[in-house]
């Protein structure tokens, strides 16, 4: 056994040296994929039916958990037991806007004080992390089957705009699915990696990534194998689903369902309206007009003619919401009027960029014809697999390096609720920053530390990441006690905060767990629960091996009793035979430890007898036999 080294919290390797394969996983809002580098080329891995896209849908039924197309097929009949677009809920609390949004077919389990989102599905309460872990588990199993063995690790992609809470949740889901998460990689960066290596491009590139539920814009500089993210921005709650929703709104209004009446109309109907809207949108990618057909519960069939122009008018407001973030990212990257830097290309990522109106909009916005020759659904997973291969020490692309940034500023709430930024957005990671604060009031005995993420001036307009206290300061006049706060952001973009009081040396350090996230204990518990089954397997294996060992010892001891009865002294035979009987009965039972103990007891009882037999064999050995024969006799 090789030796153990102490890891940082949460960093114990699961399978560091097990020779396996590393994969890239795109855990998408609508679909998820897994890819791996095979023979030097990144490829997506398909399931038995040859499908690469796994719908990110999980169904919790009486007959177990279903993931993917099978789960999607249950969505209409069991809308509350079937969770789709779970990515929108990652790292979010019950009070967040994404959760309280109007058109949501889910039911939430209440009652927990921690504010963590829990879906009431299939008679249980599941968190978004657990739902995502089900999807990841299926992809892991697919990869293990395809690659023929255990995985060494995985790179999981996240929208660049994901905040700390969302990243933590994604990493937790990976752990829960039994994956060694080598790195969380920003989706646009992954796409740039796939394109950059494919085209050997150099220069400044914008990656416009419009997925089902998230929008990202990133500006990267590609030079000599280094992919440097210059700026990033976006909206973690904006995507193609919003196009569907805009179209669905029209249908719902025509059906005469005002917002208030929608609950009564039933979640199942809402789902079907959304599905019909999506299908119509997809048909309009290639057709100038289409008919949206929706069978109603009453038996009637609702029909609505939708032209491409009409759809484009419906989705235009959603599309235009991507503009400001793009302009800001360009500015942050130092591109535009008044600078000598220009953009060399625009890459399209995400299924929603298939919509012609999106392409036209991007072209207008950047003044460049966008690149879209790698399948926009696959490009992120492909790029992630390249990064996974690099991280796992693969030989291809050894010279490639990604330099990524944090998407949103990290700061602390100050007196009066204003935010003091500690690490500004677009800082290259890993990074650290330190700041010293003093007490505000006389005899103040503690500091309340509130860590927030976002660009707004007031703390309550930013995302609350964590709160903790540094307590036990001796009473001192205001301004005397000094607290030194250190922010550390690792290469996954995950934050750790340390606070230290200068005068007394009081310390508090926390791995920032999002205010609405799962605690380490909860994750640990889920992990333990998931290895409950493995425990049973191990018990079976142990039992079998102890029985085999017992068989061997029983046979050997009986043979010895028969061969050398003259060497037995006093009640030795009785003792050994009692031990034999005891072992025999334990062997018939289920308890491997009992078998083990009785093997030891027999060993003890027969120890001296065995020693005498050894001596006899040695004496015989003296009379000219070879050592091997002597050993065989024993």
């Amino acid at each position: 056994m090789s030796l153990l080294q102490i890891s940082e919290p949460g960093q114990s390797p699961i399978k560091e040296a097990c020779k396996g394969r590393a994969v890239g996983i795109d855990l998408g809002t609508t679909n998820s994929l897994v890819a791996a580098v095979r023979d030097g080329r990144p490829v997506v891995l398909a399931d038995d039916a040859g499908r690469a896209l796994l719908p990110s849908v999980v169904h919790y039924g009486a007959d177990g958990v279903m993931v993917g197309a099978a789960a999607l097929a249950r969505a209409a009949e069991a809308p509350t037991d079937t969770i789709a677009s779970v990515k929108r809920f990652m790292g979010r609390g019950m009070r967040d806007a994404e959760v309280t949004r109007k058109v949501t077919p889910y039911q939430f389990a209440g009652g927990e004080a921690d504010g963590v989102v829990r879906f009431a599905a299939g008679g249980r309460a599941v968190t978004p992390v657990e739902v995502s872990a089900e999807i990841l588990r299926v992809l892991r199993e697919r990869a293990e089957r395809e690659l023929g063995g255990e995985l060494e690790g995985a790179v999981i992609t996240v929208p660049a705009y994901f905040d700390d809470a969302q990243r933590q949740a994604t990493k937790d889901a990976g752990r829960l699915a039994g994956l060694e998460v080598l790195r969380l990689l920003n989706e646009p960066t992954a796409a740039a990696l796939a394109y950059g290596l494919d085209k050997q491009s150099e220069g400044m590139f914008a990656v416009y990534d419009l997925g089902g539920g998230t929008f990202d814009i990133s500006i990267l500089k590609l030079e000599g194998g280094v992919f440097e993210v210059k700026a990033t921005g976006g909206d973690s709650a904006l995507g193609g689903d919003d196009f569907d929703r805009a179209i669905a709104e029209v249908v719902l209004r025509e059906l005469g369902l005002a917002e208030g009446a929608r609950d009564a109309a039933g979640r199942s109907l809402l789902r079907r309206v959304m599905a019909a809207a999506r299908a119509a949108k997809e048909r309009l990618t290639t057709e100038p007009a289409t008919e949206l057909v929706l069978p109603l519960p009453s038996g009637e069939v609702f029909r609505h003619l939708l032209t491409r122009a009409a759809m484009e008018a419906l989705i235009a407001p959603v599309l235009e919401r991507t503009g400001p973030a793009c302009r800001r990212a360009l500015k942050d990257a130092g591109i535009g009027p008044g600078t000598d830097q220009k953009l060399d290309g625009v890459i399209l990522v995400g299924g929603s960029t298939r919509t012609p109106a999106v392409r036209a909009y991007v072209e207008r916005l950047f003044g460049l014809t966008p690149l879209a020759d790698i399948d926009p659904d696959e490009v992120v997973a492909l790029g992630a697999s390249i990064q996974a291969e690099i991280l796992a020490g693969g030989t291809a692309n050894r010279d490639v390096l990604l330099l990524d940034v944090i998407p949103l500023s990290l700061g602390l709430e100050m007196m009066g609720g204003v935010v003091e930024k500690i690490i500004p957005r677009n800082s290259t990671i890993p990074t650290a920053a330190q700041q010293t604060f003093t007490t505000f009031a006389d005899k103040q005995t503690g500091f309340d530390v509130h860590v927030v993420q976002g660009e707004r001036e007031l703390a309550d307009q930013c995302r609350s990441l964590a709160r903790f206290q540094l307590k036990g300061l001796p009473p001192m006049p205001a301004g005397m006690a000094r607290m030194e706060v250190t922010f550390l952001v690792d290469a996954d973009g995950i934050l750790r905060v340390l606070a230290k009081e200068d005068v007394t040396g009081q310390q508090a350090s926390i791995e920032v767990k999002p205010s609405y996230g799962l605690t380490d204990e909860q994750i640990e518990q889920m992990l333990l629960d998931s290895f409950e089954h493995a425990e049973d397997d191990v018990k079976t294996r142990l039992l079998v091996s102890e029985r085999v060992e017992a068989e061997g010892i029983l046979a050997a001891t009986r043979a010895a009793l028969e061969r050398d009865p003259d060497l037995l002294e006093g009640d030795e035979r009785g003792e050994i035979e009692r031990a034999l009987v005891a072992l025999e009965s334990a062997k018939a039972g289920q308890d491997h430890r009992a078998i083990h103990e009785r093997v030891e007891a027999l060993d003890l009882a027969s120890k001296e007898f065995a020693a005498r037999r050894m001596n006899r064999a040695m004496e015989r050995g003296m009379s000219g036999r070879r050592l091997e024969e002597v050993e065989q006799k024993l």
Partner: protein
Amino acid sequence: MSESSCIDATGELVPARAGETHFDVLGVPRTFVLDARELEQRYKALSRKLHPDRFVTAAPATRMLSLRRATDLNQAYKTLKDPVRRAEYLLGLVGVDVGREDGGGPKAAPAFLMEIMELREGLLEAREAHDAVRVGAMTTDVRARAAAALAEVAAGFAAGDTGRVTAAVIELRYFRRFLDEVEAGGGDDDEVAA
């Protein structure tokens, strides 16, 4: 050019030593005059050697060291690539803390402060009058003055005159703040308000 303090001659990672500067981390001479392009190349070459991506399968202690050194490198590059931050950092190394806001640091001349106040009032008026032309003219003027102050910083360093550098850096800070304000208030990109 000297080597980075993050790695030894054999390319092994080395922990930070006491008194290490950003210049040591990047392995460049401690001077105000640095070639931006050269600095960037150096930063990228070092990133390749230090980045945690290179140590994913290494022992935990090595991974931790890589994380620390890559963090040091990023901080060093962030500070040195920007001439104003670089100047402030150099001043800090000789004990002049320009960034102190508790009143203990060096101060701008009262006449200069008056001028800045007038400039900001002017900006506010122009904004209220939606006078984009005037805002533009003021911006151009302040940009030119910032460039001149930066030249003064370089000249001050060349002459070894810390007082001259300090005065110019303080002026630069005010100009930058003014320009930030122009950008923040004039942009059409304030989408966070949505």
